[in-house]
């Protein structure tokens, strides 16, 4: 089996969970990966300080899409104030594959926009 393009990665890429838009929403952010032109946006509905609903949208490579899809399942239900504390390792561990330096930004884009929406901090997760 492929090291990077594991079945579940391709599955999330082809059938991404929690993709689309959310109207109305409480939080949103949008960003891109300069390397390959991936674009990703997020809409979040907050309820009682927690992420009640979340939708990603945009286009990108298998890694960035799968990362968004997989992360979305963890993010829903999480207290908003916890989002700012999530770091790069959190996503990379979630993905469960080893990520080369070239693909790192693909993997981190979903967390970047989610943090951007929740905290306004648009820097790359480290």
């Amino acid at each position: 089996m492929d090291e990077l393009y594991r079945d579940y990665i391709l599955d999330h890429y082809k059938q991404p969970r929690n993709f689309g838009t959310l109207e109305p929403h409480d939080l949103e952010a949008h960003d891109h990966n300069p390397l390959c032109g991936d674009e990703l946006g997020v809409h979040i509905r907050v309820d009682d300080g927690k992420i009640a609903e979340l939708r990603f949208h945009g286009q990108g490579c298998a890694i960035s899409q799968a990362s968004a899809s997989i992360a979305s399942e963890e993010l829903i239900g999480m207290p908003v104030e916890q989002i700012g504390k999530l770091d790069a390792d959190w996503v990379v561990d979630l993905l469960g594959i080893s990520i080369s330096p070239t693909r790192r930004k693909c993997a981190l884009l979903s967390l970047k926009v989610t943090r951007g929406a929740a905290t306004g901090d648009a820097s790359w997760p480290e």
Partner: protein
Amino acid sequence: MAPLATSLDVRADFPVFDRGFAYLDSAATSQKPRQVIEAMDSYYRCSNANVHRGVYKLAQEATDLFEGARERVARFAGSEAATTIFTRNATEAINLVAYAWGREHVGEGDEVLITQMEHHSNIVPWQILCSERGATLRYLHVSDEGLLSLDELDQVLAEGRVKLVSVVHVSNVLGTINPVSEIAARARAAGAVSVIDGSQAMPQMAVDVAEVGADFYAWTGHKALGPTGIGVLHGRRELLESMRPFLGGGDMIASVGFDSSTYNELPWKFEAGTSAIAEGVGLGAAIDYLGGIGMETVRAHERDLTHYTLERLGEIDGLRTFGPGDPDMRGGVVSFEVEGIHPHDLAELCDREGVCIRAGHHCAQPLMRELGVPATARASFHVYNNREDVDRLAEALQKARKVFGL
């Protein structure tokens, strides 16, 4: 299958291929032959000195090597030394025109006309100019086959507000070879100045800038088997003479007073500070090398590989190529997408097979938007490529489809 038009066999001149790559990214930058690397090497080892003002032999030698290269580059391009300005790259060459010509001649209500297939380097300088001067930036459309329309050009020019037209000679995404001498002639007839971005053209076909007849013609050394750090701007003498300088500093002046200065002759008036000396020498060696092969042969080789690539990629399910179908109308670059696999993943999976292709927007986001894709994959060629490289690409793409379960 079309017969091999030429049997170029120059790969042994390119040391990088010892690593075994199928390098298909020459539109981003070309590989360099031994002859170019050695010319710079020997410049630094034997003849290095600052140019133009040195009295001693070593400085004279360096000056002769550098200015001799300029003369050969000028001849190669159908221009002359005095109107052949060395810049850092094509981007700086275009910015030079935008700053030194544009800021003086483009004003409120004027228009700058470019096309939807321009590289960012031929978009952003005009955006900056237009926003500074209150002018409007307009774009000629690109048809579904990747072509410009001269009729549309005529219509826009007829409106009478266009001060400058800037068009790419060969598109780095679509491969389209644009009719630049017609475009330059129509611009001139309409009283507009013309700029041609020849970054992809000069490296792969015989270009005579006098024949093209544009006011400015820009290109870049590193795509023409030459070094990084050097580009070229050919300009019409009267324009260059009438223009104010761009960058100020050493070498571009005739004399400096406390309050003002007088400027040096062409081409040095536009070359401030210490020149890219070794890079000039390297570029001279590059065009010698290309001239040795013959630009007709280079072009025939690229045409053949493009033809073959279109054919081989056509065999792959779900693969779509962009740009003109006729290899006579396009340079050595093929952009494509494969349904169900993002270009970034394609490039990664090709890399695993030692096949180097590019994925992304190719510094042409407006064109990507027109094509309705976020990114494409792209294979591009130069003299060192052969059909085996294309075969390796086709196999890698088939493998990629398997990985993605397609």
